[in-house]
């Protein structure tokens, strides 16, 4: 953490029976870590076992015979549809969907936050409140009307349609994050720049954007996770050439009849989750820092 942010623990007295309480502290933390890691452990362990070992054995035990075949199978030969393609082609669809969706919704969120904090107009709170409420709408109820609009726009069944839907339903969150962040940003700087004749976009680009790093991280992580993991929109609004990986994973896992290859399912699930997992592991540190710098302040 940055040096100027002192932790609460700094204030603790240094003379307490330190070693004992430390040991207790670590024990508790390790117990929690086990609770959190258990499902991941189950998934990983069972993704490197032959199927016979899963059917006959205990799901918590380590494999007697290690194999990477389920991973290979999930990636390029598992049955997703009529052809046994594995998850591979769908991975690309998800990337093509998630990158523009996250980029556009983040940019729009930043601009919205900028306007809502630095260019206030009468009724700006109501506008913000109305936008924020969008975060809370259950997605099941918007399926049918959204389909109608996508059809009218001529982008039903395409990746563009999915991008549009994810941008729209992500706007509430991205606007919220940036608005709360910019709320704490000194307005005097903006006013001074205005006096100097800087334009709307120039102020945004030169003054606000350079210090927006933490909140961009939070927003991108949040949006990336939500868009990547979405199943409902992905299934409903994607045609033959736009199916995201979650839909493919569902086809792999939820096939109606036939032998369930659980090892392949878990390997596939881990493959599908890899991008988000990596994002959380690599950027998790910045995530907390970003939340700290404004997102949790109401």
């Amino acid at each position, binding site marked *: 953490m940055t040096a100027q942010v002192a932790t609460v623990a700094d204030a603790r007295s240094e003379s307490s029976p330190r070693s004992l309480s430390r040991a207790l502290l670590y024990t508790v933390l390790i117990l929690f870590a086990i609770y959190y890691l258990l499902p991941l452990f189950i998934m990983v362990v069972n993704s490197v076992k032959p199927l016979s070992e899963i*059917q006959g054995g205990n799901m918590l035990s380590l494999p007697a015979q290690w194999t990477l075949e389920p991973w290979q199978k999930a990636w390029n030969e598992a*049955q*997703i*549809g*009529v*052809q*046994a393609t594995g998850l591979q082609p769908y991975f690309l669809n998800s990337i093509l969907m998630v990158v*523009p969706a996250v*980029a*556009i919704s983040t*940019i*729009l969120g930043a*601009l919205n936050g900028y306007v809502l904090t630095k260019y206030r107009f009468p009724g700006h709170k109501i506008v913000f409140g109305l936008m924020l409420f969008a975060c809370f709408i259950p997605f099941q109820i918007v*399926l*049918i009307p*959204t*389909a*109608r609009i*996508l*059809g*009218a*726009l*001529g*982008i*039903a*069944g*395409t990746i*563009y*349609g999915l*991008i*549009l839907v994810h*941008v729209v339903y992500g706007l509430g969150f991205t606007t919220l994050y940036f608005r709360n962040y910019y709320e704490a940003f000194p307005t005097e700087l903006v006013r001074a720049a205005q006096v100097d004749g800087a334009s709307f*976009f*120039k102020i*945004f*680009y030169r003054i606000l*954007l350079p210090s927006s790093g933490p909140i961009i991280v939070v927003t991108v992580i949040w949006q990336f996770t939500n868009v990547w993991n979405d199943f409902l929109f992905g*299934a*409903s*609004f994607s*045609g*033959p*050439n736009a*199916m995201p990986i979650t*839909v493919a994973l*569902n*086809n*792999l*896992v*939820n*096939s*109606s*009849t*036939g*032998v*369930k290859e659980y090892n392949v399912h878990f390997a596939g699930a881990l493959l599908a989750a890899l991008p988000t997992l990596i994002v959380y592991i690599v950027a998790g540190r910045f995530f907390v820092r970003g939340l700290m710098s404004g997102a949790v302040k109401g």
Partner: protein
Amino acid sequence: MKATKAYLISAVLLGSSALAGAPALAQERVDVLHWWTSGGEAAALNVLKENLKKQGVDWQDVPVAGGGGEQAMTVLRARVTAGDPPTASQMLGFDVQDWAAQGVLTDLNALAAKENWDKNIPAALQQFSKYKGTWVAAPVNLHSTNWIWINKKVFDDLGLKAPQNWDELITALDKVKASGKTALAHGGQPWQDATIFDSVVMATGGPEFYKKALIDLDPAALGSDTMKKVFERMTKLRSYVDSNFSGRDWNLASAMVIRGDAAVQIMGDWAKGEFLGAGKKPGTDFLCARFPGTQGTVMFNTDQFAMFKVGANRQAAQQKMAAAIEDPTFQSSFNVVKGSAPARTDVSDAAFDDCGKKAIADVKEAEAKGTLLGSLAHGHAARAAVKNAMYDVITGEFNGDYTPDQAVKELVSAVASAKQ
């Protein structure tokens, strides 16, 4: 001004997507929504794909698995609402009728007349594929649900034979239970509970009662003493399942019978694929029999490909697809893999195993006797609302939420409410 540019680019991206979104036109293609994504099913469907390819038709696959097609039906709603229906969609039972009533399905009568569908497809199936006298869907197969699957070794060791009636079934199950094994392998999911219910209603009340209660939804039949007896028998069967049954997938229940941990499973003919997949042979390792007391009747469900109204440029391919589905060679090769009987009665049974031959013969017998009846559990007896309302009661009773007495009353009121 780079920021302006970035914003403009994003705006252009959003706007231009409307133009770029128009699908490229292939020469001939079919866009098929289905939920057959497991190895065997997909392999079977792949035969159709290859047949069409030979005729120059490109297959665009839209697989959406989950919930026995429920997920796919949600997707279908979105696509039809968007004005972008698939060429064909896999569909079950009354769904075909419901979609036809919306006026979105196309007319296949010319093709049906040319290829003699009226004569070769059983009348009981036709009532699902035709809407007001017009063919709107091409049936692929005929599954039947009143089967029991027996681990032969477990039965042999206890000196048991395939039961022929309810009492023999109970005697057999008692013996297995006493031996310490699980007598009845079952997965507690509403549709599986209902699959058993189908057979018990038929075995208890006979085809007349089945039709009156589950197809005509006659309140007197639903509320009758016979129905109470059905629920009592369900409770009896409940006593033979292991404590761990709820939520179990049906194929895991099959695996219990395959391994010999359990003796009997009551399940449709798709279960056969599990046994064959595990390398077991019909007649030597496992037995397939009609649910005791239902020989001579067949409760069926049929997978259909409903054909949607599509643009003129896609109609030729659509007709080719419908014709390819009803091709007897395809019907045979598909259903051998799928475990079902062909939807046409003029398909040779030469390629089928013993269970498959029996299924084909049973269908013919039942059709002649008028006892080829739609399965409630699989949406071929009553429409979705009523079916699910019945599921609630059946599952509730099976899990002990209702006594048989209460269940009968609940059944009558649930059906009445769902019929509105």
